[in-house]
């Protein structure tokens, strides 16, 4: 069987560089979450978030080993099954999921909160890889050939949008669109598809509840909510800007420690880091993300087959979009939308799915020299 091919050559081809990059980012993340949970107030000292984050990283490494060990071609073969399971989980969220901050995103499995939408990010990449592997073409794809992928994207998109989790829904669409663009699409087909999407927007709008509409309005127009999202962005920009070149020092960020900065462990982790470590720290972190992305892109380029390339490229898109939207948001150039920063934001499901993605990349990298049998 393919997935049992865990031979020594796999280990020999193990991508230590990628692991080093990821672990560096994770280490920064732990320090940063420690700082975000730290407080002058003795009673609140030693918030357990960073401990939990370490636990999630360890679990993530296990997930990474699993996705590394199972041959990605086997995973691509089973992509439709995985996709169906992910869809089923998303439907289960709507029935059994519990609600936090007005949004129904989590399933509780053995006391652990788990976010099926994170699984969906990877399975949409796998399913698109499988589809395009099955429908290889030297010509740009036409609209007719893109109907199936469009349906495969729309279903999870709507399910996640309904939670509502605009950020993840948006990421799903962005990753998929990037993959399709990369594979090659007929310009006419693209125009028709995008105009179709624009026309269907009012229909989607119609299905949304009032509070969801409000969220969308605020998403596109943060000034409508100056004490909410607008306030957060202002405080975030102050945090980043006041960090200056060298930063205020570890645990010394006033915006962070005095709680002017919102959502410090999750969406606004980058602001915490930039305040305490300054431009120097922010620069290093962005360079690390760039290394991650370009290293992944190299893996996509050298992948043995199309499905490997598409999976690796999809993961490149996953990281790039998440980093760009998250940092763009905290720097005040993109609207506020809840997307975590990979390996830095606190959150179990996201950590697991990012780590699994890294495992996949290593997997594709390890198999790049192996011949078809």
């Amino acid at each position, binding site marked *: 069987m393919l997935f049992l091919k865990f031979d020594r050559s796999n280990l020999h081809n193990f991508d230590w560089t990628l692991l080093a990059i990821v672990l560096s980012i994770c280490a920064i993340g732990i320090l940063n979450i420690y700082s975000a949970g730290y407080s*002058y*107030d003795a009673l609140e000292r030693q918030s357990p978030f960073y401990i939990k984050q370490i636990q999630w990283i360890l679990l993530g490494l296990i997930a990474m080993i699993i996705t590394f060990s199972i041959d990605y071609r086997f995973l691509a073969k089973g992509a439709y099954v995985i996709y169906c399971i992910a869809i089923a989980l998303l439907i289960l969220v709507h029935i059994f999921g519990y609600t936090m901050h007005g949004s129904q995103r989590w399933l509780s499995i053995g006391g652990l909160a788990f976010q099926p939408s994170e699984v969906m990010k990877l399975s949409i990449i796998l399913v698109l890889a499988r589809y395009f592997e099955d429908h290889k073409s030297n010509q740009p794809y036409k609209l007719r050939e893109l109907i199936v992928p469009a349906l495969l994207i729309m279903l999870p998109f709507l399910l996640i949008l309904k939670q509502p989790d605009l950020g993840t829904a948006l990421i799903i669409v962005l990753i998929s669109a990037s993959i399709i663009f*990369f594979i*090659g699409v007929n310009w006419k087909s693209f125009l028709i598809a995008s105009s179709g999407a624009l026309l269907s927007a009012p229909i989607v709008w119609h299905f949304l509840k009032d509070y969801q509409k409000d969220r969308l309005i605020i998403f596109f127009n943060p000034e409508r909510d100056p004490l909410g999202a607008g306030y957060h962005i202002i*405080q975030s*920009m*102050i*945090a*980043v*800007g*006041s*960090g*200056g*070149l060298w930063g205020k020092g570890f645990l010394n960020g*006033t*915006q962070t420690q*005095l*709680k*002017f900065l919102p959502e410090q462990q999750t969406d606004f982790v980058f602001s915490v880091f*930039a305040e305490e470590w*300054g*431009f120097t720290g*922010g*620069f290093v972190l*962005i360079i690390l*993300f*760039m290394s991650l*992305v*370009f290293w992944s*892109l190299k893996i*996509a*380029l*050298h*992948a*043995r*087959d*199309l499905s490997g*390339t598409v999976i690796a*490229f999809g993961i*490149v898109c996953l990281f*790039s979009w998440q*980093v*760009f939207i998250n*940092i*763009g948001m905290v*720097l*005040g*150039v993109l609207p506020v939308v809840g997307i975590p920063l990979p390996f830095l934001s606190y959150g179990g499901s996201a950590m697991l799915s990012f780590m699994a993605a890294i495992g996949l990349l290593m997997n594709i990298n390890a198999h*790049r*020299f192996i*011949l*078809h049998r």
Partner: protein
Amino acid sequence: MENRFTVLNVPETPEFRQKFKIVVTVLLIIFSLLLIRLWYLQIIKVQEMREKSESNAIRYRKIQSLRGVITDRNGDILADNLPSFDVVYMPGIAKNHEQLIQRLQILYNRKNLEIDLSQQFGKTMRPYLPVKLEKNVGMEKVAVVEANSVNLPGLYIDVSPVRLYPKKEMTASLLGYIGEVGKDDLENGESEYSLGDITGKYGVEKVLDPYLRGRSGAELVEVNVHEKQMQNLGRIEAVPGYNTVLTIDTRLQEAAWLGLNGKAGAVVALDPRDGAILAMVSAPSFDPHLFNAGISAEQWKNLLNNPLSPMTNRVVSGQYPPGSTYKLIVAAAALEEGIITPQTKLFCDGTFTMGNRTFRCWKKHGHGQIELHRAIVESCDVYFYNVGKMLGVDKIAKYANLFGLGKETGINFPNEKSGLIPTQQWKLERLKQPWHPGETISLAIGQGYNLLTPLQLANAYASFANGGTVWQPHLIKRVETAEGRIIKKFEPVKTATIPLSKKTFELLRSALWGVVNEQGGTGRAAMVPNADVCGKTGTAQVVGLPQDPKARRLKKISAFHEDHALFVCFAPRDNPEIVIAIVAENAGHGGAVAAPIARKMMEIYFNIQESDIRPQVANTAETGR
């Protein structure tokens, strides 16, 4: 080796590599955008963001300095600081606001206390910012809040200094009042003040503000997003203000206030040897403590619109016709100009006619043949009508000016008025009319255009009493630290000398002595045994004072038609130590109303017991009322 595998690497075609180049470019652009934005915020905008970050978290809390204590010449406290107790509410600790207020209300009700609920509370972003619920509450409320602090989480008592004036209204127009520095003061370039500072608004509090106010301190604290105090970043202690010793003698001040007994008027006493003011009373007055808790707009309007102007210090700002007290100046002018001699006898039949106008003496049937001494003692008007006619207005003005009248005395006090000494030229310039000789006639007995402040009157008599030295009246003896180290001493200032002959001084001094001590004198109510009081009564007619717009307005109210009672005196006759000038508005005759107040003050000054006073004098005082 490598080739064997790469050949088999299916997707790697030239078009494929091209696509990757595009992706690399797009990714480079995206990351560059992030880095540029990061550079912009952290390097270009760093100063602005640092400031915003600091104003987010750093609070500059002013520490009010303790104002200097004001005492009189004997060390009696006139202005002090008192702790004010405020009920303060901290929403972050209180949690349940409605329940808290309800509990407080129940506790208050048991003691029949009313709660002041003018403070509005809403949801607050800064729950650790204290809110003053009730300012300057009484000890009962303090006791209620302190005793029940366990059941009133989030409520506590805060202490801040307020001004205490133990003599209340008695010294209010002298000491003035304090308040928060106004926007105008700040805009007038008084850079030493900042918003929220306490400053003197009137009277001594204003004049001595630079010494009294001290320097406010500050506390730099770091707060979190809930305004909860996290740590102290530094503290500059407030420096208390200097203490001030006034020349005032509280006993005289008190006697003057009680003497006026609710009548509107002014009393000023000063030391003719150096111009030190011993008492300065203006009535009606105001409650200076009104300003402590922040005066309401209503109260402020009432004070300002009161027709009796309680906010005016009449000693320096009230202008009155001097009445017969002016005869001293007219007599001195006449003697010096050689118009009369002490022996000059004039006939008074009760009237004096000039042209078609008839002027009356206060004594209906006249004084008969009378010479200067008795004319002053009995205050004969007709004698002075004649003298005035002979002198002319400008000669009178010349001598009035020598006595320091017609211009400010130079006392360091807000809103001092200059009074008015008319001349022919003045009338031509100001009223565009020539002087009528008839106007000189009434001028000679202190009626007409001429106006004096009580302080000018006292100072003119003081200059006479000390033999011709015009001192600048002063209120402040010295400024010192709490430990008694002297910061500034105020030395008396001599402004002029009155060039009268010794003979004139002697003649008039004896006449003024006669006013109080001789049979038939108009000021006998001021007689004090062994004190040798010299003085002059005056009764100023209010009707016919068209020059003063305030008086004109007051004319419409009939009670204000009554004459002003004036009395000015000094004692002892030789080497005088004290001068007192009294104006009691619309109170009647000077000898009957004003002189007894002077007597009381003289008694206190010379420490004379009640039993020493001859009953006859006391009776005069009572019937005079």
